[in-house]
Each structure stands twice: as structure tokens, then as C-alpha cells.
């Protein structure tokens, strides 16, 4: 609550006789003293990490400019001197009472390592693939990420590791493409694989307390990836463009099943939550199997043009996610999922009435549907959350 809003409320409560003048003073003092320690460091943290990232991007740009007048030995010497200085400062900051300095220095150290790797590649004209450089960098900073335990660097490592997998899978010379990606459409399975892989890694990382930050990071990307996958699957059904075969789907099935199994490795997850996520994974795989099998069984291209099938899948998938968040008592995410379900219903409405929506009557009806849906959701959202939590008990 903002300070001005708090002051107004306290004045109202005092005027109504709900609290005494002394209580008002004590609450105001308490909140004033608490606010800087709660919000200040986070604001500074964000700005400092942003500054470290911008500084590192500047260094990488400087490296990329490849100034010919500076000898290679001087560039390398400067890079290693900077890296050594940062490493020494980081070691000194490890035991410091304030973690902020360590986190900022660790961010700089990690990104300067990447810049130095780029410089080495530039000076020696390395012909390697981007995923190879990314893999080497992640290996080099992995122990540092492990000891950092929290802050920005574990999140940077997690996001980069997902990027590494995607870059590797999309590289035409990599093993993945040779095994599973004979056609462009086959890479569609990455939409299923990435969230499953994140869920699997997040669950496994949750077993070790030092990897708690990485586990949270993979959880976040699993959720974000699942949303993208759900929308992508809806698109897959709605348009007649995508064609899958069983072979590229095989790794998606294996990784998704491993992710489902790993849910039981997670102590903090209620049993109902596990079952709901398993249902979501099963539903997503089942959505693809008939099309892939039809493609495998015959030489003719299977058409997937079923708009309402896509909408039905998306609605059920989002409701499963909403139920999961209701079980975990995460109200905002529950609300967000139900809003997305409502939006998909509106899209179905426009798909069904088609050109009628552009007529005067159609526009009026559409406006009323929008207002009615929003009001209905707003009025029933609390009861809806309680109902869903009760149903999945």
C-alpha cells in the first residue's frame, strides 16, 4: 500500500472510531520504518543489476567492433585483467554481510566471461557454432552459480540454459536436428519439449536446497512455456499448416513423461496439484498423437483444421492450470487463467458469428457479450476459486 493511500485510510478509520489516534500514529510509524527496508533494496537491486547488464552489453559491443588498431595481445590482456579484478572483488564480497555487492559483481563477472569468450573467438577466428560457445560459458560459470544460491546469476544461468537447448535444437548441424528434425514442422515439438524439460529440471533441482533459486527459475519458465505451448497447440488445431510425424514427437513424449514422474520428487507439491499437472501433460500429448499417427500411417497429409477442437483444448488446459493454482492458493494466477479462458470464449464467439460481428447489430451484441462476461467474471471470481478448490479436493 502506498504511503498516501495508507495515510488516507488511517485518517478514515480514526474518524470512524475504528482505531484510536495513538494506534494511527503507531501504525503510520511502523509502516514508514518498514517501507524502505522492504522496497528500497529491491529497487536498488533492480537498478544495479540493470546497470551491470548494460555495462556488460557495452563491453560486448566494444569487442564486436573489433578495433584493428588495438593489438590482439593488448585486448586479451585487458580482458583478463578486468576478469581477474572482478573475480578477486567477488571473492572478497562472498563473505560480506550485504549480498547486494556479491550479486552485482557476480552478474558482471558472468557477463564479462561471456564477452571474453567472444573476444577469444574473434581473435582466433573460431569457426564453432553458437551453441558450443554458450555451452562452454554455462559450464564455466556453473560452479559460481551454484555457490551464489540466489539473486540474478542463477536466473541468468537458468534462462541461458533454456536458450542453449533451443539454439542447439534449431542448429542444422546439431545431433537433435539430424535425429528429430527432418522438416521444419517437426520443430513444432519444441513447444511441448521446452516446458516439460523446465518442469523436469525444476523438480529435480528442488531436491537440493542450494539449487532452490534455479528450481524457482525453471518453474517460472515451465509455466511461461506451458502458456506458449497451450496457445501454440490451439494454433496447431485451428490452422491447416502444421504436420507432425511420430518420430519428432517421441522425445516430447519421453521428456513429458519424465517431467510427470518427477512431480513426485517434489515435497512441497500437494497430491492434487501433481495429478492436475499430469492431466495437463497427458491432455497436451493426446492432442498431438492422432495427427502425428495419421501422418505416420499414410502418405497423405493429415488436415488439422478444427477450430473448435483447438478452442476446447485451450479451455480445458487453462482450466486445469487454474485448478492447479486454486489448489496452491495462488489467487492472482488463478484469476489470470480464468480471464484467458474468458478471452478464448470471446474469440470462439467471433469465430462462430463471423462477418455478422461487423454489422451494427453484431457490434452491439458483441459489446454486450464483452460487458456481460467481464461483469460475470468479476462478481463470481471468489466463488469460482472456492468452487474449483472444492471440486479438486
Amino acid at each position: 500500500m502506498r504511503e498516501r493511500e495508507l495515510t488516507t485510510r488511517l485518517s478514515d478509520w480514526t474518524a470512524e472510531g475504528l482505531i484510536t489516534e495513538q494506534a494511527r500514529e503507531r501504525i503510520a510509524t511502523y509502516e514508514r520504518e518498514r517501507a524502505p527496508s522492504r522496497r528500497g533494496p529491491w529497487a536498488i537491486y533492480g537498478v544495479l543489476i540493470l546497470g551491470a547488464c548494460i555495462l556488460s552489453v557495452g563491453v560486448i559491443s566494444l569487442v564486436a567492433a573489433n578495433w584493428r588498431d588495438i593489438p590482439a595481445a593488448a585486448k586479451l590482456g585487458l580482458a583478463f585483467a578486468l576478469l581477474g579484478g572482478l573475480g578477486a572483488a567477488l571473492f572478497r564480497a562472498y563473505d560480506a554481510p550485504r549480498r547486494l555487492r556479491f550479486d552485482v559483481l557476480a552478474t558482471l563477472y558472468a557477463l564479462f566471461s561471456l564477452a571474453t569468450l567472444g573476444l577469444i573467438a574473434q581473435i582466433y577466428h573460431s569457426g564453432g557454432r553458437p551453441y558450443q560457445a554458450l555451452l562452454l560459458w554455462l559450464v564455466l560459470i556453473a560452479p559460481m552459480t551454484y555457490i551464489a544460491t540466489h539473486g540474478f546469476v542463477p536466473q541468468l544461468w537458468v534462462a541461458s540454459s533454456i536458450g542453449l537447448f533451443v539454439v542447439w535444437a534449431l542448429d542444422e548441424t546439431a545431433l537433435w536436428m539430424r535425429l528429430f528434425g527432418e522438416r521444419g514442422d517437426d520443430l513444432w515439438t519444441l513447444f511441448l519439449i521446452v516446458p516439460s524439460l523446465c518442469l523436469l529440471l525444476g523438480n529435480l533441482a528442488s531436491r537440493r536446497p542450494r539449487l532452490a533459486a534455479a528450481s524457482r527459475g525453471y518453474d517460472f519458465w515451465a509455466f511461461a512455456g506451458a502458456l506458449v505451448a497451450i496457445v501454440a497447440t490451439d494454433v496447431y488445431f485451428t490452422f491447416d499448416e502444421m504436420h507432425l510425424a511420430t518420430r519428432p514427437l517421441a522425445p516430447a513424449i519421453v521428456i513429458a513423461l519424465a517431467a510427470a514422474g518427477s512431480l513426485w520428487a517434489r515435497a512441497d507439491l500437494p497430491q492434487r496439484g501433481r495429478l492436475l499437472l499430469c492431466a495437463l501433460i497427458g491432455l497436451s500429448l493426446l492432442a498431438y498423437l492422432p495427427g502425428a499417427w495419421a501422418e505416420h500411417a499414410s502418405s497423405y497429409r493429415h488436415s488439422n483444421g478444427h477450430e473448435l477442437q483447438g478452442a476446447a483444448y485451450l479451455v480445458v488446459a487453462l482450466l486445469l492450470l487454474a485448478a492447479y493454482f486454486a489448489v496452491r492458493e495462488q489467487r492472482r494466477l488463478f484469476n489470470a487463467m480464468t480471464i484467458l479462458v474468458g478471452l478464448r470464449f470471446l474469440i470462439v464467439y467471433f469465430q462462430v458469428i463471423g462477418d455478422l460481428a461487423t454489422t451494427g447489430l453484431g457490434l452491439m451484441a458483441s459489446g454486450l457479450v464483452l460487458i456481460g462476461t467481464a461483469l460475470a467474471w468479476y462478481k463470481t471470481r471468489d466463488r469460482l476459486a472456492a468452487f474449483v478448490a472444492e471440486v479438486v479436493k
Partner: protein
Amino acid sequence: MKAKHPGVLAALALPLVGLLLLTAWKQARVIIGTRVVVPIAGYDPRDLLSGHYLTYRLDLDSHAACPANEGDSDADANAETPERTRLLCLNTDANDRLEVRALATYEFDPPATPDGCTVVLRGTCHFGRFSANVERFYVPEKDAPRLDGAVRSRRGDIVLRVDRFGGAVVEELLLDGHPWREAIDKTSD
């Protein structure tokens, strides 16, 4: 330095030490490798400039570099065999001409170089073109267009350093037989 955190020290030193070792390894390959000059050409009509580097191909006799194996059709040998390693015997004759001959695997027993070969270069064949993972040269942005034009007009050579196992690193780009910096400076004067 504090001695109570050997694990922390090792974890924080790894990026620095790892990158130093990588640099040392690359520099050692440049120093130890055998020098060989190979002509280069562009992938017409593709732009040679890709970001901050030139991409090119080694201008070798493709029939000599990527011959069809016995029992293979030309298409089989040249089209899509990225995992198959190819060995090339490169020999500079008395007139500084580069002779190219494909070797069978049994003809090369590293680190000994077969008779008549200055170096043995290891690579792969893609669509009938030999690639040794040296087809990239980083250049300053402002000099890039001139270098692009020079390589496109086949005035370029690449200086490779090849180790005894057939691995190669790029040492220098030559334009009309001179290091590219000198060649660019001459044309600017």
C-alpha cells in the same frame, strides 16, 4: 586471499582459468601448427559478410577434395554426409601451387604425416564442398566492405596452421599475397 573457502575460490576462479587455458590452447595451435596458404572464394551470390565476420569457402578442387567413394553414387558422397570425416593431403609444390588429394582413413596414422603431404587437413564434405571449420574470419566493421569485395574477386588466401592430427586454425587473411591490414593500408594511401 582467505583460505577458508577453497571451494568458493575454485568456483570463482574457474571462468578465469578456463578462458586462460582456452587462449593458451588456441595460441599453442597457432605457434606449433604447420603453415599452409589456401586460396578462398565466396559463396556466390550470397553476401560474404555475416555480422562481424567474412564467410568463405576453401577454393580447392572439389573433385579431388570430395570424390565419390567406391560403391557410392556422386549424390551419396556429396549430398548429405556431415558426420563422415574427410582427410585431405595438401602439398605445396616447387611453384607454390597447392596440390590436393583425398586420403583414405587408413592412409593417415597421426601424428605421422604421409609422404608427399605438407599437411593433412581434417574436415567434412557438404554438397561436394570441403569444409574444415575454418571458413570464418572476423574483421573490423569499417573494413568489412573492402575485404568482402577483395575476397569476392578471388584475391584472397587464408593462412592456416594445421596440427599433426589434421585440425586447423586460421592465422591470417591475405589479399594479393599480403596480410589484409597492409593491403588495405596500401589501397588507402
